[in-house]
Each structure stands twice: as structure tokens, then as C-alpha cells.
């Protein structure tokens, strides 16, 4: 984004805002669960370096290209929450729960950065709200980043309400809902012009399969 001929790092700003939002949510959630402030601050101090830098480093190791990938960031954050849960256990896996609940918020806000930066763009589209990136393809495109942002922020709000009633299964519900949304919205991305199914969709399907099988297995074991 250019303001007064100076390029403003809007992408980085949105990523940082996304992490700040997630940290604030995690802090408030854990304070409501009456966890000690010291433990919460220690956990939040892990979220930012592990989530942000960790995903950058893992992307660099796998791809030799330093960027941010949503699923890699998600896995790194989940591993961080599981590690902290093992080291400093809480009742009902609160650290893992709040991290899972914060994922859609994190993704939703960071997608705004993608919209302004001009990456992860959608299919060619001439209708309402189409976007043209003059430094990129220079054709009108579908604003998939805005749609993903709205959908995932909406999912975050919805999951907060669901958490009040079905807090036992909230981790599975969050994974199912977010993976399904990601799978469905990926069809509107520019990558689908050349591919039948993308890597993100394969990962989404695998996650859906694993979680649904796990839920069925638990129900059968309970019976």
C-alpha cells in the first residue's frame, strides 16, 4: 500500500494486529477460567515468537522461501499449546481450547493483509466488489481475501457462542467448521484455474477425516 509515495507495510501490520487480537482474546479467556496471571503471560509470551517466527522458519525450511502459510502457522500454534499443556496442565485443556478458538480470528484479520498486499487473490471476476491489482495481474479479480476474512471472523463469533453450550467438543467443532470453510472457499482462488484440488484443500480434507473418525470412535467407545 502506498501512502504519499511511501510503501506502507500493510501486510506485516495486519499480521501483527492479528497476533495482538489473538493474544488479547487468549488472555481474557484464560483469566475468565481463573488461571494464574503468571501462567497466562508465560503462555502468551510463547504464542507470538512461536506462531509468527516459527511458521516463517518452518516455511523457509520446507520451501526455501520465507513466507507465511496458514496451515503451517496453525500447526505450529497447536503444537505450542500442546507443549505448554503438558508442561503446565490445566483443567479441560484450556490452553489448547483458547488457541483453537483464536485461530479463525487470527486467520480472518491476517487475510485483510493479503487483500491489501495483493496476494492469495481470487478468480477473474467482473462483477460487484471486484479488485484489480495494478502491480500484479492487472485484471479484475474476485475479492476472496475479503470474503475469507468475513467468513472466518463470523465463525470466530459463532464458535464463542457454541463454546458456552458445547464446550466439551469445541476443539473438534472448531477444526471441522474451519477446515470445511477453508475447503469450500479455496474453490474461488486463482490457483483453481490450473488445479483441480489444491494443497490447502487436501490438508482440509485430511483434517476433516481425522476429526470425524475420532468423534465417531469416541461415541462408540462411550456406548
Amino acid at each position, binding site marked *: 500500500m502506498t501512502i504519499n509515495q511511501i*510503501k506502507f507495510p500493510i501486510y506485516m501490520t495486519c499480521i501483527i494486529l492479528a497476533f495482538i487480537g489473538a493474544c488479547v482474546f487468549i488472555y481474557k479467556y484464560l483469566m475468565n477460567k481463573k488461571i494464574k496471571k503468571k501462567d497466562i503471560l*508465560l503462555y502468551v509470551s*510463547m504464542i*507470538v515468537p*512461536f506462531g509468527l517466527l516459527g511458521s516463517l522458519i518452518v516455511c523457509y525450511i520446507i520451501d526455501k522461501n*520465507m513466507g507465511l502459510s496458514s496451515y503451517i502457522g496453525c500447526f505450529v500454534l497447536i503444537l505450542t499449546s500442546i507443549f505448554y499443556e503438558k*508442561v503446565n496442565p490445566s483443567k479441560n485443556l484450556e490452553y489448547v481450547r483458547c488457541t483453537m478458538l483464536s485461530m479463525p480470528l487470527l486467520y480472518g484479520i491476517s487475510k485483510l493483509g493479503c487483500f491489501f498486499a*495483493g496476494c492469495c487473490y481470487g478468480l477473474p471476476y467482473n462483477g460487484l466488489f471486484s479488485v484489480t491489482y495494478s*502491480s500484479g495481474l492487472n485484471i479484475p479479480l474476485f475479492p476472496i481475501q475479503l470474503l475469507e476474512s468475513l467468513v472466518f471472523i463470523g465463525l470466530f463469533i459463532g464458535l464463542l457462542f457454541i463454546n458456552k453450550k458445547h464446550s466439551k467438543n469445541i476443539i473438534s467443532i472448531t477444526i471441522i467448521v474451519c477446515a470445511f470453510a477453508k475447503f469450500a472457499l479455496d474453490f474461488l482462488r486463482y490457483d483453481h484455474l490450473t488445479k483441480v484440488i489444491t494443497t490447502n484443500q487436501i490438508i482440509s480434507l485430511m483434517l476433516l477425516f481425522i476429526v470425524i473418525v475420532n468423534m465417531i470412535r469416541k461415541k462408540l467407545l462411550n456406548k
Partner: protein
Amino acid sequence: MKCSKCGYEINEGDKFCRECGQVVESTTPEKEVKEKTKKVEEPKEEVKEEVKTEVTTVTNKPEEKRIVSSMANDTFFCLCSIICYIACPLLTGLFAYLATKSDVFSLFARIPMILPFVAYALAIYAKVKYPESKFAKILLIIYIVLFVLGIILMIIAVIACAIFLRDCLEGCQGLGSIISLLFG
């Protein structure tokens, strides 16, 4: 002895008044029993106190051993953390040098970049498991300060780049290009 209710003369040892049936309060034997039990209880308490002092003196030594061993454990984790942190640039440099000799090492050059996170995780583990450990506390503070300084330096570099070069930030890889600019 007279009955407390009707005043009829009661013989010693009688439990009830023969006139009105009032229960006679046989205080003297009970009092004596109570006093005796008190006297018996007092020595027991003294014995208990003595036993307690003996027990505390005996168990202090294992507690001291436990304190010493926990200090050794948290020092161990903190030292491992420091070693991981220092090893990252050393190993990265070593593999980068070896990569110039053979392409096989170019894959390994990127893996040591995970070590600072392992170092931080070890410091967190030491702080949580041994909350009284000052070493773990100081180490965590140092890591957090280094991380914050790194972020501040990156922001300053981005702003300087944007003002003076004007074209170092482009596209979705903006953040990656900044980092690659900083670290070569």
C-alpha cells in the same frame, strides 16, 4: 448428702434419690477421672512434640537433598537452553560453509534455525517446573528482551527501507523479503 430437688438425705454411693427419683450427680469420681486423663494426656502431648521434632530433624536432610537436586535440574535445563541458542548461528554458519563445498549440506543449513525455539521452550519448561529458579527467570527475561529488540530493529529497518529505498516491500512476500534483506 442431700438431694438437690427435694432435700431428702441421700447415702454415699446412691445414684438416685429414694424420695423423688432425681439423679444424683456423682462429681467426685468423674472429676478425678478427668483430672487423671488430663494428666495422662499432657505427657502424651509432650511425647508427640518430641516425636515431631525428631521427625522434622530426620526429614530435613531428605528435603535438603530434594532442594539441591531440583536446583541441579533447573540449571541443567537452563544450560541446555543456552547451548541450543548459541548452537544455532554456529551450526548455521558451519553448514553454510560446508554447503559451498557440497550441495548435500545446503539442506542441513536451514534446520538449526529451529534451535532458538527449542532454547525458549526449554527455558519455559525450567520456569514452570521450578518456579523458584532465578536462573530460569533471568534466562526467560533475556530471551524476551532479545525477541522484542529484534522486532524493533526489523521495524526500524522496514521504515528506513521504505523511506530511503521506496521499493523494498512488494506483494505477499513482503515480510519474507524484509527478513531476507536483513539476514542475507
